[in-house]
């Protein structure tokens, strides 16, 4: 079998990529994609710890991952609707230019 820490390192790498995309990208949709990557990395960790854990017959890891997937879908739907709405009124999806609330 594949050792557990291979999965964990893979998840850490995906999370770092997501972190970079979420913080450094100018485009709001790219930042949202970074958040999706981070959620996927978390899911890999959940399932990997379930698989290598002591109580394999209890499926909490998978249940949790399924809930995360469903919540991520809801989050993407609302997030993209927000971006489309902002684009309509401001004609931009550039996060640096959306600074109306900045003091």
């Amino acid at each position, binding site marked *: 079998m594949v050792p557990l820490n*291979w999965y964990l390192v893979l998840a850490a790498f995906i999370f770092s990529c997501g972190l970079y995309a979420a913080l450094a990208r100018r485009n709001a949709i790219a930042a949202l994609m970074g958040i999706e990557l981070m959620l996927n990395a978390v899911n890999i960790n959940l399932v990997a710890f379930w698989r290598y854990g002591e109580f394999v017959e209890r499926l909490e890891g998978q249940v949790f991952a399924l809930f995360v997937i469903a919540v991520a879908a809801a989050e993407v739907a609302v997030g993209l609707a927000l971006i489309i709405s902002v684009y309509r009124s401001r004609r931009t999806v550039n996060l640096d230019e959306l600074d109306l609330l900045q003091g």
Partner: protein
Amino acid sequence: MPGLDALPFPLPTVQQVIFILIAGMTVTGALITALAPNLFHNALGLVLAFFGVAGVYVLLEAEFLAVSQVLIYVGAIATLITFAIMLTRGMMFGRTSSTNRLMLSTAIISALFFLVLTGLLVNVAWPEIGAELAGSEQMIADLGEMFVTTYLVPFELMALLLLAALAGAILLARD
């Protein structure tokens, strides 16, 4: 074959080779998503990464989760993101850089985060082998039972959350 025993590391098993293939695919997708300047390439890289994660689930013997991943992430979320790109693009293309002024510090922080986490992870004596599973039919049946017994409240709240998300998204996105 002579000489193979003399390698400094043990030869990978079939599963490990497959893991490396799938991990390579996922890492490529994640890198394209994070680094490619073209938004459309980001979306395609994201699809690649989602597929890779589904492969990881298959390797972890969580087949139902792998199917859910392909159906929801690749089938629905990636489509939604592509539509959103088509709905918002236009003046965004090629005019300015794709990263903001935090780019350098964020890159350093992300790389450090990955290196520190990896350094921690490889030094822990994780279990190498998971226990034997009951079989995927039994697992899916157990999942179904958990949704209507132990996790009934989160399950119904999920329906309400989806309803709220749908209503909110329609209100926000409608003309």
